[in-house]
């Protein structure tokens, strides 16, 4: 049962345009959501996160939006740069019995930013 879903395996955008990566979740216990970026032959690196008490968090070119009623979050990258080409993983967690600091990951979206 995939509790965190990234339905687009790949996305291609032009340099300078907006990249929008989407993620859906099913577990209403999740209260913290994260995005990780992964280059080939490297481990995932933390990018940005959002708590369930917020609907938006911004850090430079990266903004994450959370729609709790729809159980949907998205990552916006503006403007997109060639160095942003990587696999992006959405992850979710909750604190408390059965949750702890465990992360549940989506299957990833391969972003390609073209010149």
């Amino acid at each position, binding site marked *: 049962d995939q509790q965190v879903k990234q339905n687009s395996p790949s996305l291609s955008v032009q340099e300078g345009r907006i990249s929008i990566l989407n993620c859906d979740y099913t577990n209403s216990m999740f209260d913290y959501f994260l995005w990780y970026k992964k280059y080939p032959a*490297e*481990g995932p690196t933390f990018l940005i*996160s959002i708590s369930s008490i917020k609907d938006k968090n911004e850090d430079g070119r990266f903004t994450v939006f959370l729609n709790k009623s729809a159980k949907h979050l998205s990552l916006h990258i503006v403007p997109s740069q060639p160095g942003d080409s990587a696999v992006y993983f959405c992850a979710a967690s909750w*604190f408390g019995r059965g949750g*702890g600091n*465990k992360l549940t990951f989506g299957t990833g979206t391969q972003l390609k930013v073209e010149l």
Partner: protein
Amino acid sequence: DVKVTQSSRYLVKRTGEKVFLECVQDMDHENMFWYRQDPGLGLRLIYFSYDVKMKEKGDIPEGYSVSREKKERFSLILESASTNQTSMYLCASSPGTGGSNQPQHFGDGTRLSIL
């Protein structure tokens, strides 16, 4: 900066061998995790540990065990390696305090091939 070091980047073993994957973190984190990453499946949690000598099963623990004798070191053990355990293995750590809003920090992974 947090550093999570995995002992090998690439490893080739034979079916039936006992395999040890080692992970060390240098930030005094309480929590440590082992994941495997497979194409189309994202990152899946194998085992995790909240403290020395403590361990809990993740989503796919079958065929694996772990050891945490010291706080900074978390070992993943494949008791009798099989070809379906060929994968990228990722270790991560995170602080144990602060509720759920604690990103995990990852090592660069071990690409394990079982022949």
